[in-house]
C-alpha cells in the first residue's frame, strides 16, 4: 500500500532549537528536510545563481523600497519568497513527504491533507544560551540578535500569511522546548505525529 503523504512544518523562534527538532523529526520519520538548503535545490533545478537567491531567504519585504504594478512587484524579497512557496507547493503536489522549517509553510501548504504544523518556542534564557554558543557572542548581543531575528521572522511571516506568526491558533501544536529539552521535545512531537498518522 502506498504510504500516506506526511509534511511536517516547523515554525520556530530564533534559538529555540526548532531547527534541531526539525532535523530530529526528519531522522525519526526518514524524511528530507527543507530549510535554507531549499535555495540550493531551487537554484540547481533552475540553473540559477545560489548566492543571489540566498541573501533574500526569509527576509521581510522592504515596503518603502517596493512598488507593485499590475500584480508585478520589484521586491526581490517578495519574489524570492514566492519562488520558495511555489517550490514547496510543487514538491507537495508531487505527493512527496518532507519536513520544512519556517518559510510560511503552515500557510502555504495548508491545502495538503498530510500537513502537520508545529511551532517551537523557548524561554529567553535558554534561547540566549543557544545563540551565545552557536554565534559565539555575549549574552546581551545574543538577546538583541534574538529579538531582531524574531521581529524579522514575524514581519516576513505576517506579510504572506493570514494567521499571525507564533499564534498558537495557527498551528496544530505549539511547544516550549525549554520544558522537556530538545530531544525529549522532538520525541514528544514524534509521538503526536504518530498518533495523527498511525505511522
Amino acid at each position, binding site marked *: 500500500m502506498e504510504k500516506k503523504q506526511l509534511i511536517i512544518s516547523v515554525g520556530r523562534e530564533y534559538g529555540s532549537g526548532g531547527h534541531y527538532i526539525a532535523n530530529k523529526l526528519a531522522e525519526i520519520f526518514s524524511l528530507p528536510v527543507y530549510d535554507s538548503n531549499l535555495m540550493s535545490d*531551487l*537554484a540547481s533545478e*533552475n*540553473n*540559477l*545563481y545560489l548566492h*543571489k*537567491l540566498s541573501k*533574500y531567504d526569509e527576509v521581510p519585504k522592504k*515596503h*518603502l*523600497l*517596493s*512598488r*507593485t*504594478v*499590475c500584480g*508585478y*512587484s*520589484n*521586491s*526581490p524579497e517578495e*519574489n*524570492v519568497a*514566492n*519562488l520558495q512557496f511555489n517550490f514547496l507547493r510543487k514538491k507537495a503536489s508531487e505527493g512527496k513527504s518532507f519536513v520544512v522549517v519556517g518559510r510560511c509553510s503552515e500557510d502555504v501548504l495548508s491545502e495538503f491533507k498530510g500537513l502537520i504544523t508545529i511551532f517551537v518556542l523557548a524561554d529567553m534564557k535558554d534561547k540566549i544560551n543557544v545563540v551565545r554558543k552557536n554565534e559565539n557572542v555575549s549574552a546581551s548581543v545574543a538577546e538583541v540578535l534574538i529579538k531582531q531575528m524574531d521581529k524579522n521572522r514575524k514581519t516576513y511571516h505576517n506579510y504572506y500569511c493570514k494567521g499571525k506568526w507564533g499564534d498558537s491558533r495557527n498551528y496544530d501544536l505549539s511547544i516550549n522546548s525549554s520544558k522537556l529539552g530538545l530531544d525529549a521535545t522532538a520525541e514528544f512531537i514524534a509521538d503526536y505525529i504518530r498518533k495523527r498518522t498511525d505511522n
Partner: protein
Amino acid sequence: MLPQVIAVAIFIIMFGLVITEKIERHIVTLFCGLLTIVVLFGLCMRSTDAIMQTLNVRTLFTPEFWYNAGSSEDGSTGINWATILFIAGMMIMVEGMALVGFFRWLCMSIARLVKYKTIPVFITFMLMSAILSMFIDCITVILFLAAVTVELGRLLKFNPVPMILSEIFCANLGGAATMCGDPPNIIIGTSLGYTFADFVVNTGVIVLVALILVVVYFYFFFRKELTANNSDIDIANMPDPKKVITNKKGFIIHTLIFFLAVALLVTHAMTGLTVAFIGVFIALLTLIAAGKKAPTLIAKADYKTLLFFIGLFVVVGGLEQTGILEIISAFIGKISGGNPRLIVAIIIWISAVASAFIDNIPFAATMVPVIKSLAETENVSLAVLAWALSMGTDIGGNATPIGASANVVGTSVAAKKGYPISWRRYCVSLVPPTIMVLVAATLMIWFRYL
C-alpha cells in the same frame, strides 16, 4: 484658505496611500476623487461649476474631442478623457497582438536575425525596446522582452540581468520620444494640445541623441558580464520564431492594425483625428478582428489603471480649482528669478528626482497646470516647459527600481525567473546613465530653445 487646505490634504492622503500600497491604487484615487467632489466642491466650495468642470463629461460630446488634432480646450481641467480613451484603446490593441504571439515572435525573430550572438542580441533588444515603447506602453514591451531575455540567457548561457536593465532604460527612453509612448506624455500632449509630430521633432530628437549615448554606455558597462560564459551556439537547436505564432491569420490582422495605429498617430495632426478617436477606433477594429475572443481582450485590459487615472484627474482638479497649482508655479517663478534657463532646469530636475521615487503619472498630471501657469506669468514658452516636464518625468523614472512601471515589471519578471535585482545593483547600473541623459536633455533644451 479652507478649500486649499482640504485640496492639499486630500492630495497628500492620496499620495501617501498610493505609496504604501495597503489599498489598491485605483480604489485610493477614486475614493479621494469622491472626497474632492463631495467635501471640497460640494460642502466647502458649494460649486457645481467646479464639479462639472472637473468631471469634464461635456467634452466627450463636442465634435472637437473626436476630430480636431491639437485642440487643448478643457484638456487640463479635470478628467482628461482623451488620455483615458486612448490608453484603453491601446491596451486592447496590445492584448490582441499578445494573443496571437506578436511580441514573442518579434523577439525571437530578431535574436535569430543576429544569429543568437550575445552582444548583437543585447544591442538590438535595446533598440527594439526603445522603438516599441514609442508606440506601445512600456509595461507590455518589458513584459515580453524580459521574459524572452531570460529564456535566451538560459539557452545562450549569459546573465540576463544586464540586458533586462538596459531594456528597462531604453523602454523609458523610447517612451519619452512620442506623445503615446509614456503616460506622462499622453497627459502633457492631450492637455496642452501637442501632436505626435510635435513630440517627435522635440523630445524625439533629444531621445535619439540620448539613445546613442546610452547604447554606447551600456555596451562598455556590461560587455564583460555578458560575454563571460559564451560558447558556440547551434542555431538549429534554437526555438523557431514561427512556432510562437498562435494564429497566423490573426497575427497578420493584428499586425496590420498595429501599423494602422502607428500611421494614424503619426499623421493625426494632418488628418485632424484626435488621439481619443484613434484609441476608440483601433480598439473597435481589434475587437472585431478578435471575434469570439473579444470579451477576453476586454477582460484583460487593465481597467484598474483607467480607474486610477479617473480618480487622479479629479483630485488634481481639486488642486487646480482651489488655485494651489498657481501658488506652486508662482513659487517656481520666484526662486528662478524669471530666468528661463533656471526654470527649465528646475522643471527637468525636480520632475526627475520626484519621478525616481514616486509614480510619474500623478506628478505629470499635477505639473501640467503648473507649467501652464508658469508660461503665462514668467513669459517662457509653454512648449519648452512641456518638453522639459516630459524629459524630466520620463527619464527620472529610470533612476530607481520603483521610478517607473517598466522598472517594476522588468525587475519583477527577472526575479520571478530566479534573478532578483537589488536596489544597489539597479542603481549602480542605471543612475549614471539617468544623470547623463538628464544633463544632455537640459543642455539640448537650453541651447535649442533659449
